[in-house]
């Protein structure tokens, strides 16, 4: 049985320019997997741990965050803060015996570039290989 993971991506205003400019069809033509849902936030530094956890609660198999390069964040340290929060969630997932690599942080340049697509493809392959998230087991 084929498995298509539910992947939720949180991108900042700058790194997500491609998603806004090209729309669904353009993104598909670029090679972006259709099973990735993008959430655009003003800055990844604004993302709370609880927001990312909620994505897992709502059925995500994988979650990733795309923020500015560490030393080039429009809001100075926003993407650094996001990266720390992603690490905190990785630790929490490990504590719950769930693969920490189900969440990832990417630091990318703003604008249109292949790395944005590559990040999506990497996560899609990784999560597909991991299989369904253990949180999705049927609750009794």
């Amino acid at each position: 049985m084929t498995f298509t993971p539910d992947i939720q991506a949180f991108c900042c205003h700058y790194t997500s320019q491609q998603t806004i400019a090209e729309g669904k069809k353009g993104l598909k033509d670029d090679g972006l997997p259709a099973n990735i849902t993008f959430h655009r936030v003003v800055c990844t530094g604004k993302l709370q741990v609880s927001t990312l956890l909620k994505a897992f609660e709502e059925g995500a198999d994988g979650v990733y965050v795309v923020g500015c390069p560490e030393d080039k964040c429009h809001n100075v340290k926003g993407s650094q803060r996001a990266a720390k929060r992603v690490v905190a969630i990785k630790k929490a997932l490990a504590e719950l015996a769930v693969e920490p690599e189900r969440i990832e942080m990417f630091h990318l340049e703003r604008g249109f570039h292949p790395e944005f697509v590559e990040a999506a493809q990497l996560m899609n392959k990784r999560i597909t290989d991991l299989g369904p998230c253990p949180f999705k087991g049927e609750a009794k």
Partner: protein
Amino acid sequence: MIIADRKPLDEIVGMVSDAKKILVLGCRGCVTVCSAGGEREVEILASLIRLGMLKQGKKIETVEGTLVRQCDKEYIDGIDEWEGQYDAIVSMACGVGVNFIANLRPTTKVYPAVNTSFFGGSTDQGVWMEQCAGCGNCVLHLTGGLCPVARCAKSLMNGPCGGSVNGRCEIHPDVECIWQSIHDRLGRIGNAEAMNVIAPIRDWSTAGHGGPRKTLRDDLTI
């Protein structure tokens, strides 16, 4: 303030594994300041407990709340707001808060979500250090304001010991020798001769070795 750290998730999830609905209860006191058990941490822990239970194939309802403090009777009464909505309380307050709930709600199950660690302060963003041991007999006036009870690995009253090397403690290079710091500071404030005073054998009876301590203020009791 009191510094605390969240307990390992498997320990917390294990505590509530038989519950169907829980109240995750934060405290706006010390644990909010040290980011262990305030409103934000309550939201995160509630989510992690739900996920932890889902991993076990179970579902749990969580109610989230945060009291002004959990170390005062009048604020504990605030729990009544969630009456009937939980089987057990997971308290994110320090151990005092958990004890207060247990004292005042004799039939309510209450579990600790944090390990209460020490009395300390934030020395840098995201870093907290122990500064006081609450020993009940303060000697800071003799030691330049730096506490040898809390900050010397041996709680020596006449330091430094032979393990002090270049201002560092022998237990770890990251740990300062507080007696070296006391010596340096006493010199800077013109009181170096205080180092020549031999402290007598200390009476530790105020430090909790004689059972739980109590403070009674007649001027405040009614």
